[in-house]
């Protein structure tokens, strides 16, 4: 096994890991703020992918130009979903430490969205040819598939913007305050439900970004979310619930494991390695790599 191959495997792993991380980012944000595991996250990804798919398919735009439409649309979708569906349940369970009913609501949303997509678009796999599909960028002998490379850049930009937003804007500060202690934040005059709506909207908008990143090289179908769901959960728990760097590093770790180990063992077995690493991390650092030991 020569060095070139390992280096190419590392490149692929990092590129793949970047969109895994991006997919997990929305999930970790929503959990960090609302303290709710959003089981509909995969379906939000699916909605993001279908929205991006139809925009590119119907208008022939560059998939990254579609971001301009997909991101606001998905933000509104997430905002509405939280405001109309999840909020009433959250209010009803105000005094409950762990609002489990909300988890059931998000599971319901997952089923409804997936089946609506099945009804509207059918079960078939769809791929749209974009201007970047199948394009590569060569650096010496190393191959960088352009869609994945752009995905990497978009992931970096998105994370940077998100961190900046949370650190320096008033709304960002409110979101952080609500995530630290929702009752104290309410006492300081923060409308916690509005904060939740916005956090959920941002989470959905990130799912929309993932949709735009994925469609140049991945296919869309109604249950595509399930493919990424389990991965996202592992990444979020591995990195630390609610942690943004945790999601990105977790994504990179999973991507690298899948890519590098597959060069030595059958790729069916890389899943095993992923779970072993996952369990080992939980054993040594139960809060995840970047998680803080905090009583939610």
């Amino acid at each position, binding site marked *: 096994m020569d060095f070139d191959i390992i280096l190419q495997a590392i490149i692929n792993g990092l590129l793949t890991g970047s969109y895994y991380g991006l997919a997990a980012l929305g999930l970790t944000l929503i959990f960090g703020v609302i303290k709710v595991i959003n089981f509909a996250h995969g379906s939000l990804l699916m909605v993001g992918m279908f929205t991006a798919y139809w925009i590119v398919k119907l208008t022939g735009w560059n998939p990254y130009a579609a971001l301009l439409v997909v991101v606001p649309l998905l933000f509104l979708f997430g905002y509405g979903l939280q405001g109309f569906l999840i909020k009433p349940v959250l209010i009803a369970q105000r005094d409950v430490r762990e609002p489990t009913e909300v988890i059931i609501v998000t599971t319901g949303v997952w089923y409804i969205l997936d089946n609506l997509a099945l009804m509207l678009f059918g079960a078939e*796999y769809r791929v749209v040819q974009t201007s970047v599909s199948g394009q590569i960028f060569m650096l010496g002998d190393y191959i960088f598939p352009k869609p994945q490379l752009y995905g990497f850049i978009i992931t970096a930009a998105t994370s940077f913007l998100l961190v900046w937003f949370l650190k320096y804007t008033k709304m960002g500060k409110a979101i952080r305050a609500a995530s630290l202690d929702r009752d104290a934040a309410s006492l300081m005059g923060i409308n916690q439900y509005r904060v939740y709506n916005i956090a959920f909207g941002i989470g959905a908008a990130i799912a929309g970004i993932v949709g735009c990143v994925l469609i140049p090289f991945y296919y869309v179908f109604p249950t595509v979310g399930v493919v990424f769901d389990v991965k996202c959960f592992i990444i979020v728990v591995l990195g630390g619930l609610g942690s943004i760097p945790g999601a990105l590093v977790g994504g990179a770790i999973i991507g690298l494991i*899948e890519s590098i180990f597959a060069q030595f063992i059958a790729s069916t077995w890389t899943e095993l390695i992923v779970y072993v690493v996952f369990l080992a991390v939980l054993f040594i650092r139960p809060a995840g790599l970047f998680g803080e030991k905090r009583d939610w």
Partner: protein
Amino acid sequence: MKRVFRHTLKGVVVFGLSVLLVLSAGQASKAAGPKEIKIGNILPLSGPSASVGLQNKQAVELATEKINAAGGIKSLGGAKLVNVFTDSKGDPNVGVTAAEQLINTEKVVLISGAWNSAVTYPSTQVAERYQVPYVVPVSVADKITERGFKYTFRIAAKDSWWTDYQFKFLEEQKKLTGTKIETMAFVYENGDWGTGMAKQWHERAKKFGYKVVLDEAYPSTASDLTPVVMKIKTKKPDVILLTSNAADAILLTNTMATMKVKAKAIIGTGGGHADPAFRKNTGKNCEYMFDVVEWETDLGRPQIPALNAEFKKRYGYDLAGESVDAFASVYVIADALERAKSTDPKKIRDALAATKLCVGQGKLGIDILSYDCIEFDKTGQNKHAGIVLVQFRDVKGTMERVTVFPTKVARPGFKAVFPMP
């Protein structure tokens, strides 16, 4: 008054019964020279395989109509074939009951079916017990004709023959083009189907002396297959054999194109590669790849276009490999009845065992096959049944599956592009 009424009633009943008797006597006298021969058909007409079951039924009906219109079974005084269809729901238990019912209640002389291997397997056992011949047009599981049964006859190729044809094709191309093929990569989905195929590939590779440089099972639901493709690229195999479902076939093909993986031949095993979504979603990337299939509409047989047009006009879709097997099966049955000159199941069985129907004998159902003859070996397996190889080719701007092997049934004007450019 009451008494009178009862008396009248008695009279009516007696009259009615006698009418029935006379009528049935008439029936009996009609049946003396058999005008109708009942054939039992077990097919999945509801449940998950209903759509293919229906296509089989339509093919059987169309073939029966043609045979009856041409004068039926001449050695039995022009008797007409009559199909009795029963729904197996794709369920082995229902299939077994259906076979019992067809034999005992409907008194059919022969059974045909049952599409699902899982239904064919136990229902042929019922027919064997009653010594009623059972013609199997399509169920592919090897073991169906490997139990020493005397009354089971299968027209379609066995499951294991698919891999046979992949290797036959390679052997032929090696000779024809002088291409050197030494190494192989097996890449397959990690389910029952994929691992089963891989096992057969290993046996054949050993037999033909190929070196297996990569044996890679992958999960069909993978979100990224770049690692698998990287491995293929590193091992540089001459030939890549694939067994994939639809989604992974698409992802694998597109990723291979991105990572510039080249091989002398990439051969699929039906399934995902046969799905129209595969061609649509890979576009140019699948050009020159190969796939195996039992039949294609573009085979170089002159009778296919007209029959396919008739089928499509009536039912709305093209003939498929399985409907062709079902169509041919009716001709095999009719031919056996013709030679048996009897509706005695034992005599029909002996006639079936002696079947030798070949292309060019003026039998439409046989003339559209991808191979030359139907002849059963002593296990009841059609020993000539064949598979064809198609190559994905750009035909005037659209990606089509073009039959290229066996050469004698290749689409006119086409031959395999080998090695892949």
